[in-house]
């Protein structure tokens, strides 16, 4: 195999677990009955201080003779404190608070005395631990509710036995069991020891609450770690300090795939504070360890200063030569002809175009973007006693165990991962490359070592949201209805066979562009730059394209945009019918609900002054139905003032209204920030943006008020990390058209001369 082919094959294998996660996100929540295979194993006392509720998992973990106490979520102490263990990583999505609330609700625990702690990473106990694709809530919903309800049932049974009354006559509220007829009450803390000695209830016997019975869910709660955040207590990966710790920097080739041919080792090793410097060959996979130079020092600053003095001779024979200007030119060429064998071909597109009242053609494009979570990548690793111990801000602890185990050559039991709070994720921390680098460095250092990336490393070595190009043609019939949709998506490939991660068609598109005649084709250009899921993967860019073009078609049809959207949503196209299945599927009523409410709240149809416009768009994304409206004005220098954003979401019942609102507001503003000004470009394989001074993340002065509404329903809840991002860019572009008559077909908008 040639060096280049070898490189491509390594690259193409690189994000298998992310692909699996995305597939998972598209099929969640799990079909009813899956949880039924899990029964309560037992309740047990731990260290004589209370009750721990446990599940057992079916399958391998048990067969392998794993410990019998598994999946511990809840502890009740004699002092009546209920401790809830949050198994997933907190990346700013508020999951630690939400998980606590779900369990506390079913348990009827007193929220004021609930403590939520980060659970340890242990797949034998907790199963998968990770966050991505807005799946934490739908994955956890049944499991956590059963944990709460099971604990409550045990506590009530203990009280009933003690008082010699039927359990059915006892009620629970605020961590207290009460028997009305006798007037007796006991706290959960007082009952915990006795409860732990009782047999565990069968999952099937548990009656979960209906939405009208909720006491906690749906109200506003402040984050469980807010106090630590506002007083600067250690929470994040970067805050980890281990006695005897040393510090490391790692420098990789600016063009991905470059190898170390040599470096100024003598000079670097003589620098103050430097302990050692060495090259690593790595595994050659971007999600693991790419070749580079590690510098070990006695402080972060010494490691950084030496890194600045580092001179590496790179062997770039197999390195990336990716060029944005070349991609843009090539994509235009490819777009000129529609491929002969489109992957999707519904109805008769050619006939529809021939008979159309109006056709519209347009070319849309958008650039790469970086995740740029504010906490630069870091991990502390300690190789001791045949164990690789790791402290890492990761979105994917469970896959990290396997990766590290495989590279280090020890069983997974000898890999310990402490998951810390993450200073933002947005999909960046689905990759554990920085964790793997720290582990590879720790193997050579006889001390705990904290690897700290500089911001410049973070910009240069991301798994970017890939850019893309879409040649579109649409038709409306004589009644002004959408009749045909033809799309040619020009994207990238690394292995020459499949699209790069985050660069294939969104599975959600058919429902937002339902036409009786549809044709979709893909062309691919070679790319070595790593890509990956970025908040609302695929939808974050493709909803901009399809919802902007839908607006173009509504204008061509001379129809009201909202009415046009509702018509498309309600359209019955047999080939695009959603098969009955899990509830996180597209639902036309829910889609129409968010569109209508958003139009109403935004003042759709109201007369507005010249230069001011209202735009709307919607998406079905990661289980959520979300519509957004943007009201703005544009001055003669193309400076945009956004007056207001309205976000209307249907994600089922809201767990924590404050957290949900924060996600919706943050998602919408992230969408605005990215659409307006964020762009990653590359030349000769090198990323051209190095820090926030040339990657203008939106600041407070440009952040408009965001009005948030939820349509709450009895569908199982879905996540909110992603779905508020995708509709924003199209709503923004549609508003600019309403205000100025100019159509926006490129992201970021700064390329068209717009500013905010």
């Amino acid at each position, binding site marked *: 195999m040639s060096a280049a082919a070898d490189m491509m094959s390594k690259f193409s294998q690189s994000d298998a677990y992310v692909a699996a996660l995305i597939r998972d996100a598209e099929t969640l929540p799990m079909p009813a009955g899956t949880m039924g295979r899990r029964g309560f194993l037992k309740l047990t006392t731990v260290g004589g201080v209370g009750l721990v509720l446990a599940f057992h998992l079916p399958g391998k973990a048990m067969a392998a003779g794993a410990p019998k106490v598994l999946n511990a979520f809840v502890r009740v102490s004699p002092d009546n404190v209920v401790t809830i263990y949050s198994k997933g990583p*907190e*990346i*700013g*999505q508020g999951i630690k608070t939400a998980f606590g609330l779900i369990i506390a609700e079913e348990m009827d625990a007193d929220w004021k005395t609930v403590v939520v702690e980060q659970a340890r990473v242990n797949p034998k106990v907790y199963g998968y631990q990770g966050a991505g694709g807005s799946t934490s809530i739908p994955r956890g919903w049944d499991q956590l509710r059963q944990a709460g309800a099971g604990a409550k049932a045990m506590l009530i049974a203990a009280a009933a036995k003690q008082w010699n009354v039927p359990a059915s006559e006892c009620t629970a509220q605020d961590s207290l069991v009460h028997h009305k007829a006798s007037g007796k009450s006991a706290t959960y803390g007082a009952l915990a020891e006795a409860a732990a000695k009782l047999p565990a209830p069968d999952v099937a016997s548990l009656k979960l609450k209906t939405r009208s019975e909720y006491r906690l869910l749906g109200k506003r709660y*402040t*984050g469980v*770690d*807010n*106090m630590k*955040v*506002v*007083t*600067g*207590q*250690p*929470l*994040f990966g*970067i*805050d980890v*300090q281990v006695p005897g710790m040393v*510090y490391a920097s790692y420098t990789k080739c600016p063009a991905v795939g470059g190898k170390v041919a040599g470096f100024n080792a003598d000079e670097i090793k003589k620098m103050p*504070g430097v302990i050692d410097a060495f090259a690593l060959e790595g595994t050659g996979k971007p999600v693991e360890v790419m070749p580079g130079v590690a510098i070990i020092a006695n*402080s*972060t*600053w*010494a490691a*950084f*200063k030496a890194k600045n003095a580092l001179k590496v001779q790179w062997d770039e024979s197999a390195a990336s030569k990716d060029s944005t200007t070349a991609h843009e030119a090539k994509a235009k060429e490819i777009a000129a002809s529609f491929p002969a064998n489109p992957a999707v071909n519904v109805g008769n597109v050619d006939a529809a175009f021939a008979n159309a009242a109006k056709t519209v053609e347009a070319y849309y494009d958008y650039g790469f973007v970086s995740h740029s*979570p*504010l*906490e*630069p990548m870091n991990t502390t690793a300690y190789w001791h006693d045949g164990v690789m111990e790791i402290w890492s801000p990761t979105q994917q602890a469970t896959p990290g165990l396997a990766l590290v185990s495989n590279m280090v050559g020890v069983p997974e039991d000898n890999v310990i991962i402490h998951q810390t*709070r*993450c*200073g*933002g*994720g*947005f999909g960046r921390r689905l990759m554990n490359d920085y964790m793997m680098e720290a582990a590879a460095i720790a193997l050579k250092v006889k001390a705990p070592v904290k690897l*700290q990336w*500089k*911001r410049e490393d973070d910009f240069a070595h991301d798994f970017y949201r890939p850019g893309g190009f879409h040649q579109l043609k649409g038709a409306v019939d004589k009644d002004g209805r959408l009749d045909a949709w033809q799309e040619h998506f020009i994207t990238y490939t690394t292995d020459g066979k499949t699209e790069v991660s985050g660069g294939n068609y969104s599975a959600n598109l058919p429902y937002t562009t339902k036409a009786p005649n549809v044709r979709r084709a893909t062309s691919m250009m070679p790319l070595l730059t790593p890509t990956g899921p970025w908040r609302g993967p695929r939808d974050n860019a493709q909803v901009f394209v399809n919802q902007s073009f839908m607006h173009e078609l509504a204008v061509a049809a001379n129809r009201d945009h909202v009415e046009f959207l509702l018509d498309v949503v309600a359209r019955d196209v047999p080939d695009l019918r959603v098969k009955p299945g899990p509830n996180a599927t597209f639902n036309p009523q829910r889609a129409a609900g968010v569109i209508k409410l958003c139009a109403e709240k935004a003042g759709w149809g109201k007369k507005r002054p010249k230069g001011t416009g209202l735009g709307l768009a919607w998406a079905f994304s990661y289980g959520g139905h979300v519509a957004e409206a943007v009201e703005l004005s544009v001055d003669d220098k193309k400076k945009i003032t956004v007056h207001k954003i309205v976000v209307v979401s249907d994600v089922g019942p809201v767990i924590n209204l*404050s957290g949900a609102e*924060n996600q919706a*507001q*943050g998602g919408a*503003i*992230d969408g605005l*920030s990215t659409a307006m000004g964020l762009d990653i470009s590359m030349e000769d394989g090198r990323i051209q943006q190095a*820090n*926030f*001074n040339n990657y203008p*993340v*939106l*600041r*407070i*002065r440009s*952040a*408009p*008020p*965001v009005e948030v509404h939820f349509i709450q329903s009895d569908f199982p809840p879905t996540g909110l990390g992603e779905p508020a991002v995708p509709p924003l860019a199209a709503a923004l572009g549609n508003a600019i058209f309403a205000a100025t008559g100019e159509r926006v077909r490129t992201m970021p908008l700064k390329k068209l001369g717009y500013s905010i």
Partner: protein
Amino acid sequence: MLRLLVNGTERVVADDVDPETPLLWVLRDHLGLVGAKYGCGIGACGACTVHVDGKAVRSCTLPVSQVASKKVTTIEGLAENGKLHPLQQAWIDADVPQCGYCQAGQIMNAAALLNEKPKPTEADIHMAMTGNMCRCACYTRIRSAIMTASNQGGSNVRRG
């Protein structure tokens, strides 16, 4: 030997610490105060904001040698006598943080603003806080919390 006055306590910086080391890394690596955060290293994101003699500074670009004998306050020292600063309380009550990484810098910058202008307008807030990036975009709540902490009400904040 370099002596610093950090949060009202004299702290000695070891002799082997490079005097060019930015204050941020001395606080974090040598003094164990990790509240101020590293975000960009070029003073572009504001996550490292602390006070030097009451003024907000970007500690990631300020050599520690320049703060000798000056009064340094970090987020860990913002509460006084066990009572949270009104901004810290407002931040908790408005449930501002998402990931929380930038918030120490946001609060320290806002505290410096309130020292100078106890009743800032929204335009003042925008001017003063623009150097502080929030990647999660909690901006609407940051605005609201600053208004609350300056006793100007936290809801329905008008843009100035």
